[in-house]
């Protein structure tokens, strides 16, 4: 048996070998299961990838630390949820008996991909210094609390971290103005 908590820890650290293993171990099973929905294989792989991304994201946010099912079960649950979303967008009907409650939090920002402000923000983030990006990523993406970030990055106290964070935000604003 694979040790699940350990696997989640490795996912959190973004270990590529672990990601690849999870990706490849579950892919065929997912395609088998998703086969019954009217989507072609390309699209199913696309959805599967998004499901793996959501899995990693929620692992990083600490949302699956208390996971009671297997990772595969959870991953398939996400995949199924995303298939239904995709079908809904295409105005296809979803088998009503399958519309089950699934506890899963995930912000779908796909519509924001064409927002001009966001596009420029995304570009400018790449120009930000390493430390700034680390702080902002931990705070906004991994949803870590300032106390945790202070420990993780070894800041002497919370105030130093807070002013670092606001300096980073200001830097980003200045970059966007240019």
């Amino acid at each position: 048996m694979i040790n699940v908590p350990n696997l989640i820890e490795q996912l959190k650290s973004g270990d590529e070998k672990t990601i690849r293993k999870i990706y490849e171990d579950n892919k065929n099973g997912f395609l088998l299961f998703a086969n019954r929905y009217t989507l072609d294989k390309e699209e199913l792989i696309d959805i599967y990838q998004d499901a793996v991304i959501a899995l990693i994201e929620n692992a990083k946010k600490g949302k699956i630390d208390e996971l009671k099912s297997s990772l595969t079960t959870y991953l398939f649950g996400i995949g199924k949820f995303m298939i239904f979303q995709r079908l809904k967008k295409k105005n296809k009907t979803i088998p009503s008996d399958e519309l089950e409650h699934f506890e899963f939090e995930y912000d779908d920002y796909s519509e924001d991909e064409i927002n001009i402000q966001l596009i420029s923000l995304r570009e400018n983030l790449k120009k930000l210094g390493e430390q700034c990006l680390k702080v902002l990523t931990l705070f906004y993406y991994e949803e870590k609390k300032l106390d945790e970030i202070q420990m993780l990055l070894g800041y002497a106290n919370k105030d130093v971290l807070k002013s670092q964070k606001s300096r980073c935000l200001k830097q980003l604003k200045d970059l966007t103005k240019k």
Partner: protein
Amino acid sequence: MENEELVNKYFEQQLSEEEKVVFESLLQNDSEFAKEVAYQKNVKKAITLNERETLKQTLQSFESNKKQPKKTYQFWSIAAVFLLFFGGLAWFQFMQDSPEKLYQEYYQSYPNVVAPTVRGDNDRNLKSDAFYEYDSGNYQKSLELFSKIYVDEEVDYALFYQAMSLMELNRYDEAITTFDQFKTSENNAFTPFVKWYKALSYLKINEKEKAIQLLKELSEKENPQQQMAKKLVAELE
């Protein structure tokens, strides 16, 4: 400074009830404050989209460098042909015990694809319990629960996972009897898997002919197990 603290707490999801009220009223009445919150929300989105994009590229790269294994696969199939040629009697003897070997090679636990719920304490029911036991490898328990569900509701999935639990418990004869209860119509999503696992059960109890017959049915029409069935038939014959 006070306001910055509020915004931080908002993103940390740590606002108390009173602070929420203050936060909301500032959003309504203080345009600078509202602008700042909107900006930070955008930062959150931007970082998230960037992270997702990077991960997506990583996953796509797994897909594109998959072509290499095919080469080794080809190499091995050529090697296998040679082995077949020169193996002679030794190969023949190896074939004698092959149903067991093939079973080991082809059998894979069927995943829980019906109720992939993350179980909280408040939404437990028979179905989620059954799948929970199945996922945890407690097949005796899951067998009992799925049997109960099937008696009560006569739903296909319960019958299917009942049989799968039996297979996991090495009770192949009973698994086959259970699979026999299926009305294997064309449009039932379980049909190809019922046939597939029934074939594997036959293989396990050395009823090779019956296994082959089922696998041939699977090889004929397009279905999720078609390729696997073709491969296995080729190895059996």
